[in-house]
């Protein structure tokens, strides 16, 4: 891994290398820009859902991948973001994306609250507590049905001009651009937010703060002794992670326009975690890849499978997870890096015909 990094950094900045570095980004952006025009509307809306999942996974990755705190409960934070957005818009008439900001703030606060016990509870025990949170969350939604709508769901509505009068109508993101349909507009808005969140989290990870996150993960005592305020770092990471998951949830609410407790069961938490580890924990783009992988798997591939073997989907996913942990614990990104490191090591050893570089 470090070998790749150094070859990349120390490479001569020849135009060819530069092109090689930029080309994938260009290809990626071109693809992302074309996608909404190539698919029917329901697919584009599914992509929007994948993006909300990617954002939540990005948040969880900060916590689990970079800071080493395991949460099996991010589905609940995602849900808090979603319901906050829904309630603010429907009950208090908050503008759509204003509600997103408010959700992020509220989730940050919730994250701090959950982060407090996490100072004393670690590893598997933290996983247990968050698992319990995730299991409890849909029940909480039903318990407080007066504001959440309970199992009947929360219809997110806002006053809209309709046939000449103001009425409570299901929210929708109206496209201001003539050539774009609503779902395509939504796609680009979501894409913009997703990209900004991933870039911000990348910058965070590359910064001094990010290094202290990793230091705390790798060795708390050492981090403490080198002057890193471990408790603060852990709590704030929990808050940030929760806030990002909350933004994902908020967009989910805007995407769906209605919320039901059964969407926020433990299964959602598991899938967010799956997106992180399949894509590659502790890699910036890993969660996005994991979310796309999961989306492809559950919304495209599984739907093509014959009826009788539909339950095999869980088996496939389960076996895949176990194999991944045994063979490529770094997920897709990690596995790819390992392959590349091997390949470049072979190439360099072939070139130098010297001994393999160790460390």
């Amino acid at each position, binding site marked *: 891994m470090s070998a790749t990094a150094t070859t990349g950094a120390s490479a001569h900045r020849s135009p060819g290398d530069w092109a090689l570095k930029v080309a994938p980004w260009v290809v990626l952006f071109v693809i992302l820009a074309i996608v909404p025009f190539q698919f029917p509307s329901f697919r584009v809306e599914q992509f929007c859902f994948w993006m909300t999942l990617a954002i939540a996974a990005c948040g969880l990755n900060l916590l*689990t991948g970079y800071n*080493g705190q*395991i949460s*099996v409960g991010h589905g609940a934070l995602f849900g808090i973001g979603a319901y906050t957005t829904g309630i603010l818009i429907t009950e208090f008439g908050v503008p759509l994306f204003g509600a997103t900001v408010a959700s992020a703030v509220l989730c940050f606060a919730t994250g701090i609250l959950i982060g407090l*016990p996490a100072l*004393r*509870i*670690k*590893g*598997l*025990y933290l*996983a*247990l*507590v968050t*698992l*319990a*949170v995730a*299991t*409890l969350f849909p*029940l*909480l939604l*039903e*318990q407080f049905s007066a504001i959440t709508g309970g199992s009947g769901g929360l219809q997110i509505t806002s006053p809209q001009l309709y046939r000449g009068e103001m009425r409570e109508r299901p929210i929708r993101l109206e496209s201001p651009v003539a050539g774009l349909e609503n779902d395509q507009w939504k796609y680009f808005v979501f894409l913009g937010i997703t990209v900004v969140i991933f870039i911000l989290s990348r910058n965070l990870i590359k910064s001094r703060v990010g290094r202290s996150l990793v230091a705390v993960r790798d060795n708390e005592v050492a981090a403490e002794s080198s002057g890193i305020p471990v408790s603060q770092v852990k709590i704030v990471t929990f808050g940030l992670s929760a806030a990002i998951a909350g933004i994902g949830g908020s967009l989910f609410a805007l995407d769906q326009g209605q919320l039901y407790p059964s969407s926020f069961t*433990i299964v959602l938490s*598991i899938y967010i*975690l*799956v997106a992180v*580890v399949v894509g590659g*924990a502790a890699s910036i783009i890993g969660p996005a890849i994991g979310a796309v992988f999961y989306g492809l798997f559950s919304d495209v591939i599984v739907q093509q499978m014959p009826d009788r*073997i539909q*339950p*095999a*989907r*869980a*088996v*496939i*996913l*389960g*076996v*895949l*997870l*176990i194999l*991944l*942990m*045994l063979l490529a*614990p770094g997920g897709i990104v990690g596995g790819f890096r390992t392959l590349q490191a091997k390949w470049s090591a072979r190439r360099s050893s072939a070139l130098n015909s010297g001994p393999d570089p160790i460390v």
Partner: protein
Amino acid sequence: MRDFLQILLVGIGDGAVYAMLGLGLVVIYRSTGLLNFAQGEMAMFSTFIVWTMWSLGLPMWLAILGGMAGGFCVGALVHQVAVRPVGDPHEKPLAVVIVTIGLFLGLNGAAQLIWGTLDRSMPPLFGRGQVTVFGVAVAWQKIGAVIVLGVMVLLFYLLFQHTKLGLAMRAVASNSESASLVGIPVPRLLMLGWGLAAAVGTVAGVFIAPNLGLGTNLMQLTLIFGFAAITLGGFDSLVGAVVGGFVVGALSSVMPRYITIFEKMPLAPAFILILAVLLFRPEGLFGKKQVTRV
């Protein structure tokens, strides 16, 4: 008062089953230091094996033995192919959590593939009969559950305190390196521990299934109660699992009926218990301090 007593007894009966599930969790925790999030699914799977044998005409007790044997194999296999290769749970908690989640999904899906999605009916081991004590009806099934739990605890006590195998298992749990150096084949004992836990889970499943209906989601929420039980009792304490099971059973039966805030979430008392114990007394009531503090 009478309805309180009636509800309390329901809770104690449930508690016996949570304790059984907890025993399995404790056995695994003691041998591998791992919180097995797939324990419930292992139990569900082997309960289906019991059901299959029973519906093929075997007597219930024989079917249960068969299911325990089947569960033992599932547990042992799971340890060999999935858990052992991952490594130390305290060094790589994320990998271990993911593997148990993978097992959770895999076993659940496999059960759906094999047995379909219809809830099956399973007769209560001790029948549907009841005795009335002071105007309160107590099902034989509840009394049976408490007795079976007692027998299980006794057997575990004999195994761990009075056999060479049990001694070896305890040695592995406490210090696997030293255990290995005195000639104990550690991997084989861990495998045995997983098999044992799954076999115990079968009994829990046999008691839960008649009440919840035998479906693939049999254990998904019950497991949280089991975890609450062993958190309260101490992750490494068999006695703790039993005491914890009864307390959790009683609380989650009584509180939702008398405290409005818990009305729709019998799981909440269990959750509060887990959080409070881990925060203020992480070793639980009967656990050893060194083990639970990470």
